[in-house]
């Protein structure tokens, strides 16, 4: 092997290019999603989920804290579930998860599309797709 394993180099000598940045982003966004989902589940339990919701409903709220996700439960009042605070939490989870997911799709596509022209097309389409899904998700979160 002519090249040194990057793992043994300090971060300053590794060269933080876009691929390296996205590699790190995938890991860190995963940790952020665990934290946000746990945060939403704890919030639901504080707001009365123990007596008003079952496990599936709590998980549905946890994976995306949007008030329409608790509409069909025994929650008496949707007002505490649709505050700006929860909308900001949901927006953070949406943006992080969309970026993580679309990057994952690009990684899978790169295994099958190897020409640089094809990869550039996939990247362009994925950015358009990501921005559209972020816009649609934010619209749903802030108008529901």
């Amino acid at each position, binding site marked *: 092997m002519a090249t040194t394993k990057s*793992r043994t180099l300090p971060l300053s000598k590794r060269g933080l290019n876009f691929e390296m940045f996205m590699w790190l982003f995938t*890991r860190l966004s*995963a*940790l952020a999603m*665990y934290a946000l989902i746990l945060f939403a589940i704890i919030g639901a339990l504080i707001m009365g989920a123990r007596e008003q919701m079952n*496990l*599936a409903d709590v998980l549905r709220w946890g*994976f995306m804290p949007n008030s*329409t996700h608790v509409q069909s439960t025994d929650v008496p009042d949707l007002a505490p579930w649709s505050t700006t605070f929860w909308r900001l939490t949901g927006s953070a989870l949406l943006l992080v*998860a969309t970026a993580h*997911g*679309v990057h*994952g*799709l690009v990684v*899978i596509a790169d295994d*099958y*599309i*190897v*020409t640089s022209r*094809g990869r550039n097309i996939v990247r362009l389409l994925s950015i358009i797709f990501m921005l559209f*899904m972020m816009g*649609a*998700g934010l*619209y*749903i979160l802030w108008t529901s």
Partner: protein
Amino acid sequence: MGLKRNVSLATALRYKGQGPMLTFILHRIGGLGMAIFITIHILASFLGGQIGVFLNTVYENWLFQIFIFFCVLFHAINGLRITLVDLFPKLLVHQREAIWVEWAVFIPLFAISVFVIMSTALGG
């Protein structure tokens, strides 16, 4: 050409990647499954109307729930292993043991979930 690997399909299927290969494939299936589900779910909520109502009946089907929960739970647990091993590369020597731990966590959690989903769906 992208798909030319000089390996026949039969040879590819006989590849003995063992535990790490299995988690790699399942991680991919889980990620793809979630990406497709969430895309459809957001689009249906965004567009609304009859399509959204139809898709809700698909989501509420217990077979679909078991599939999507497999995707979510496996991707989450396997992703935690990948994150820990990648952020602390010294742990890489223990990765096969980590995969066994991963299954030991995943199988009971998923079995309980399947039991809850099916008893809710079929038992009423």
